[in-house]
């Protein structure tokens, strides 16, 4: 007879003592109060917030006056990116208290929300922060089965960024036109990935940045396994592998089978490997997110795609491209692979499938919120995410990106506020953000449970192809097999397909 215990029973009972001791050591000193009426009026109200160190410090600085004005105390737990995710996932899996409010990656929403770890956002809070103003692409990252469980404060997505000044240079443009038969576009950069490849090749190996050395390259992307390769590759692949008539991208919604080895993904990986091996700076097949950003800001590459291309480019200490970059939606493709028919479909107008890479950090209230701090906690998140605060947050040097319709119209604030983007760059940036977040064929990031394992499987395969250990087809065959195996371990292909459908808002 098969003896069965639930995952939670297993964790509670078998690992109970050690787990509780360990997590208690990690948690803030005081446990959530039981909260009687008498004690409530006497005890100081403490709001406990767990978040990224850098971004959390900015939240703290931003919220300090509100906290003090209301007579509360803020205790902030600061974590590194991976550490924060691990802490949250462990607290969710073991049903233990971490903080009243926590920041978490929206990819983990299925894991976190379905474990009943969060409070549903009350309607009065949604009304108070004018939730209808939030772009649909972001709303999806906050929801589960039609209910809202988290609030936005960072519209993290990948933008395409390019050297507008170079593309507008008549001499450079004429040489490019002679070589490839069309003009560079200073307004949009590469409209398609074919154009991106032409630009990669053209700008490699000659001194276009005028430093006296031929150490300039066409592009640089995030390619390091264990860093941000997942997003680097998927942003490159969506235009080929996401068909406008099909909601699914990673796995088939009917069968749950992985799609990662279909011709769309294989073409993307084949091209990407060639680009990163030949037209990126040395080490380009092992670049971190920061490496690719530094290469762009340092004036070594002509184009890239990334998250925080705006804030870092404004730093005069670290950037030589302030005001010189153009921004746009990720390039598209005339040919898109149709998984249903097994054929490539041709589109006269390039089909875009912008990847909502990562989807942003979101903020949520724990189901185990300290009862004493209940009202204070909701006040805190309301103040942090309401339109005025949100605008101030994304137009400051926080690294947070816009996520509201109203923010997309705030050209003036982005142009002349702390970011000092200037009107032209601000307009470009906001147009790219709006188009990406509001795009009908946008690709939602993987969030259907077990995402860390899927991510590692894809990064391993793609990394093998980038290192020429395996051909792109063989590497992606391994990835697809690993995806299916992970799905089986997570509850079966159909089970994962159903979860995927839910993350797509179906």
């Amino acid at each position, binding site marked *: 007879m098969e003896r069965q215990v*639930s995952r939670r029973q297993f964790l509670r009972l078998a690992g109970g003592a050690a787990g509780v001791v360990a997590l208690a050591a990690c948690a803030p000193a005081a446990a959530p109060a039981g909260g009687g009426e008498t004690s409530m009026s006497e005890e100081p109200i403490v709001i406990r917030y767990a978040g990224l160190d850098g971004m959390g410090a900015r939240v703290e600085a931003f919220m300090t006056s509100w906290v003090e004005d209301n007579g509360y105390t803020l205790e902030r737990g600061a974590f590194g990116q991976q550490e924060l995710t691990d802490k949250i996932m462990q607290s969710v899996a073991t049903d233990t208290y971490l903080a009243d409010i926590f920041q978490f990656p929206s990819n983990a929403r299925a894991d976190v929300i379905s474990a009943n770890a969060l409070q549903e956002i009350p309607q009065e809070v949604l009304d108070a922060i004018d939730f209808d103003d939030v772009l649909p692409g972001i709303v999806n990252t906050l929801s589960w089965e039609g209910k809202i469980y988290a609030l936005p404060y960072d519209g993290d997505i990948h933008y395409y960024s390019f050297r507008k000044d170079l593309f507008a240079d008549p001499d450079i443009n004429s040489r490019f036109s002679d070589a490839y038969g069309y003009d560079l576009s200073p307004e949009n950069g590469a409209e398609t990935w074919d154009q991106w490849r032409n630009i990669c090749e053209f700008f490699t190996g000659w001194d276009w940045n005028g430093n006296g050395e031929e150490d300039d390259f066409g592009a640089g992307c995030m390619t390091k396994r264990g860093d941000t390769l997942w997003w680097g590759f998927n942003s490159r692949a969506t235009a080929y592998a996401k068909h406008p008539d099909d909601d699914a991208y990673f796995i088939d919604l009917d069968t749950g089978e992985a799609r990662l080895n279909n011709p769309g993904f294989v073409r993307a990986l084949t091209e990407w490997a060639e680009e990163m091996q030949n037209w990126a700076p040395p080490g380009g097949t092992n670049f971190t997110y920061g490496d690719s950003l530094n290469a762009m800001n340092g004036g070594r590459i002509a184009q890239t795609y990334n998250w925080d291309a705006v804030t870092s480019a404004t730093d005069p200490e670290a950037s030589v491209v302030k005001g010189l970059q153009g921004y746009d939606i990720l390039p598209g493709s005339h040919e898109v692979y149709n998984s249903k028919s097994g054929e490539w479909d041709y589109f006269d107008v390039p089909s875009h499938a912008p990847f909502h890479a990562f989807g942003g950090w979101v903020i949520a209230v724990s189901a185990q919120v300290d009862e004493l701090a209940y009202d204070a906690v909701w006040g805190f998140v309301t103040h942090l995410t309401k339109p005025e605060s949100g605008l101030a947050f994304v137009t400051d040097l926080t690294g947070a990106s816009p996520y509201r319709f109203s923010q997309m119209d705030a050209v003036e604030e982005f142009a002349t506020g702390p970011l000092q983007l200037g009107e032209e760059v601000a307009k470009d940036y906001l147009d790219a953000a709006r188009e990406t977040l509001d795009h009908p064929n946008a690709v939602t990031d993987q969030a259907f449970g077990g995402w*860390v394992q899927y991510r590692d499987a894809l990064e391993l395969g793609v990394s093998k192809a980038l290192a020429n250990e395996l051909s792109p087809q063989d590497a992606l065959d391994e990835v697809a097999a690993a995806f299916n195996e992970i799905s089986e371990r997570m509850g079966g292909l159909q089970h994962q397909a159903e979860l995927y459908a839910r993350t797509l808002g179906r």
Partner: protein
Amino acid sequence: MATETRTYPRRRSRFEIRDNLWKWIFLLPAVAIIVILLAVPVLWTLYAAFTDLHLYRIGDIETKFVGLANFEKLLSNRSFWRTAQNTVVFMLGVVPAQLIIGLTVALSLNNITRGQKLFRTWFLMPLMVSPVVVSFVVGRMLFQEDIGPINDILRNLGFEGVPWLTSPVWAMVALMVIDVWQWSSFMILMLLAALQGVPPDLHEAARVDGANQLQAFWKITVPLIMPITMTALLIRIIDAFKVVEIIMVLTGGGPGQATESVTLAIYRTGVKGGDLAFGSSQAYFLLIVLMIFGGAYLVLTRRAMGKD
């Protein structure tokens, strides 16, 4: 005058606790701590290895016992064997190098009369730095292929830059360099202590008997420092099998899977990925291999030194 002393049987108090019992009472806290911190996790991990436990499975899916399925999967998992191969290559690359460097430096330090303390402290400094810091500063910055100082120097000397982090072979070399740089200090420390324990009169006697320096080294020094050397080697071999931090920071296991170690794979599967069942089976596999290796190593070492 002789005095007679008489002994009387000691009166036993009603509440006296026998010596043996006291030993157990004093041992109890330590035993309890060891049981809680060591035995419970070890047993719990063993239990998990025979289930399909996954931290992040969504929905009402029961955790069930799966027998040896995780171990069967492990044995047929090419990816895991690749990490095992990488780990052995890494160990074979770093431990002999650390022994040679450690012995050379320890012999030099043992023979100098001035500044020994200064140099000893100096050589031990790498040991005091966190592996993560070493990997970032020595690794990611020095070995950066594009603008890193090592490649910069090579290019200025007219050579090609080395693909330190993007070539499977060079990435492994870079990791070995970092590990050797940091952990040779440990060998220096251990071997210097061993050398300082060799009685100088043995060398003097050998010289009187006509032995040259090399003969004295092989016949006197080496046998006398052998027990500590073998212990130090065992510690370093086990550490090399468990390497994880420098790989995470420097290469992330790449390019491809060229530098992923068993421990990093376990961390990714069990801790990050939440697949505690498969991660536990990998961890147990590593534990069993190390126990067999460590046991065999100790037996063979004792035999070689003629202690059995």
